[in-house]
């Protein structure tokens, strides 16, 4: 027997009160842990995907939409821009790297991205199998695409128009899978990569026999969707966006600015949830207080008897604090478990809908803080009841009964 088993034995004898305190605390902790995991992982993921991209250039529209479509492949693009504008942009002296992407189609709801090899290299993607595409209508699959669709090198597939969960009409030309990328943990994992020419070719079919004039007209009409830009120097940030936005058909969006804006919008909801979790934890503290305090009257003989058996007042103080610690530890442990379980469930659900992956199998250092604060709330709630136990007047209590 020790203080912990003695505390635990008392709590076991009052299962309902104990359960209420533990569950309230667990719900509060779980909510905060879930938020930490989801928000933390989303932020990390968004930073990783946007790394090295200073500017997204595309058609006019919502800059946030442009960023979501161009970098994260989450939203529909704002439209297309002429290839000539993109090529012109690449020559700009403020620009170190310009990666044009052609979007618009998907396969089994994974987006087909027409891009140069430098796009995959930008994310450090390496081939796990096969080779990189060289000719039009060859495709390389991101790791997740290959795994989820169970597709190997040599398979063929047809792209469908549109990128939503309900794809449009299938295109005629079939792609051949020539390579599969290793997992990168970035947006590339969920993409089907092909050359820009493939995307053009798919959309230019059924045009009949072509002469040189046709081909020239076609060349002029060719378009890309976005250009991902890396600045040559920090100076570019001051001039380049303004320069691009002043051109009638182009728009430049800064990922850093737009992600910050996105999080400030979503942040209201996150703050509300966080506040809700704090209320839960405080309610749990209150429930610990009420449970311990209201039981004091009933326990006064038990406590007095412990004094006659040689317990010091400090021991009784410690006993009640111990009970609060046992309650809080149970609540925190259950809350951590619940938070991670919820994150896993949410992750499984999100994965099916192809949003951002969330995993519950990851620990964040902030969780230690949450655990510490929850534990602290429990212990503070026990101080007043513990002080009253400390002050138990043994003689008077026993003389009464």
């Amino acid at each position, binding site marked *: 027997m020790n203080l912990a088993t003695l505390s635990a034995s008392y709590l076991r004898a009052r299962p309902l009160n104990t359960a209420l305190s533990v569950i309230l605390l667990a719900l509060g902790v779980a909510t905060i842990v879930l938020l930490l995991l989801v928000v933390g992982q989303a932020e990390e993921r968004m930073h990783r995907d946007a790394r090295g991209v200073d500017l997204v250039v595309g058609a006019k529209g919502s800059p946030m939409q442009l960023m979501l479509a161009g970098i994260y492949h989450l939203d529909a693009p704002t439209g297309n821009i002429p290839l000539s504008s993109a090529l012109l942009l690449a020559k700009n002296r403020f620009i170190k790297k310009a990666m044009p992407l052609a979007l618009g189609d998907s396969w089994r709801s994974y987006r087909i991205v027409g891009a140069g090899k430098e796009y995959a290299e930008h994310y450090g993607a390496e081939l796990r199998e096969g080779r990189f595409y060289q000719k039009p209508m060859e495709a390389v699959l991101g790791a997740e695409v290959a795994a989820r669709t169970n597709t190997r090198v040599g398979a063929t597939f047809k792209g469908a128009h549109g990128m939503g969960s309900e794809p449009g009409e299938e295109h005629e030309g079939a792609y051949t899978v020539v390579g599969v990328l290793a997992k990168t943990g970035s947006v590339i994992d969920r993409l089907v990569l092909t050359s820009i020419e493939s995307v053009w070719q798919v959309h230019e079919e059924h045009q009949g026999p072509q002469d040189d004039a046709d081909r020239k007209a076609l060349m002029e009409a060719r378009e890309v969707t976005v250009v991902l830009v890396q600045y040559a120097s920090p100076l570019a940030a001051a001039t380049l966006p303004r320069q691009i936005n002043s051109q009638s058909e182009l728009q430049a969006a800064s990922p850093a600015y737009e992600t910050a804006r996105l999080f400030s919008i979503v942040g209201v909801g996150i703050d509300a949830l966080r506040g809700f979790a704090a209320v839960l934890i405080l309610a749990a503290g209150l429930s610990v207080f009420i449970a311990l305090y209201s039981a004091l009257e009933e326990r006064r003989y038990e406590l007095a008897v412990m004094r006659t058996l*040689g317990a010091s007042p400090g021991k009784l103080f410690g006993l009640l604090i111990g009970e609060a610690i046992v309650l809080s530890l149970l609540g925190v442990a259950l809350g951590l478990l619940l938070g991670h379980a919820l994150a896993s469930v949410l992750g499984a659900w999100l994965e099916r809908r192809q949003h951002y992956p969330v995993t519950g199998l990851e620990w964040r250092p902030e969780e230690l803080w949450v655990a510490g604060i929850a534990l602290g709330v429990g212990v503070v709630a026990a101080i007043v009841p513990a002080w009253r136990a400390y002050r138990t007047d*043994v003689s008077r209590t026993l003389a009464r009964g």
Partner: protein
Amino acid sequence: MIAVRGLAHRYGAAEALRLPEWKVAQGERWLVLGPSGCGKTTLLHILAGLVRPSEGRVEVAGQDISSLSGKNLDRWRAGTIGIVLQALHLVKHLSVRDNLRLAQYLAKAPQDDARIDDTLGALGVGAKSARRPSELSQGEQQRVAIARAVVNRPKLVLADEPTANLDDAAAATVVDLLSEQAARHGATLVVATHDARVKGKFRERLEL
């Protein structure tokens, strides 16, 4: 064993106890007699170091109690005194065995299952060690309370109205058990009671 001189205790202005002189030798068995409110409980609490007397000197087992305080007094009590209360106050959420183990734990004595079994067995409740107090009869609870008071082999066993609410046979048994257990552990026994049925049990009597 016990030496009291010039003892007086007051609650506020009301005098609760006056005992000019009292001496108890090692191994003696005493009855402290008197009507309710005469100060029997107060005397027992003073002997146990639970109350500090307003006046006088109290020595128990060679120790001047007034010279002890705080933790030292608690430790002294744990090692020296065993108390049986009128309302037994067994800890409800602990098994019989754990009630005795609690006494060992709080006294910082080794937690010794063999001694617990021995003590319970000597009181005829060895088979009940896994039960909760609420599952026992009144008589069995009495025995467990006595077991808890003697498990640490105290030098002095104090019993406060141990026979109240008991029928004649049970009252006699409890006093016999206390006496037997005190003898078994070589402890001095002081029983405070206003119960006429047990008056004749011990030779040594203190009338308050």
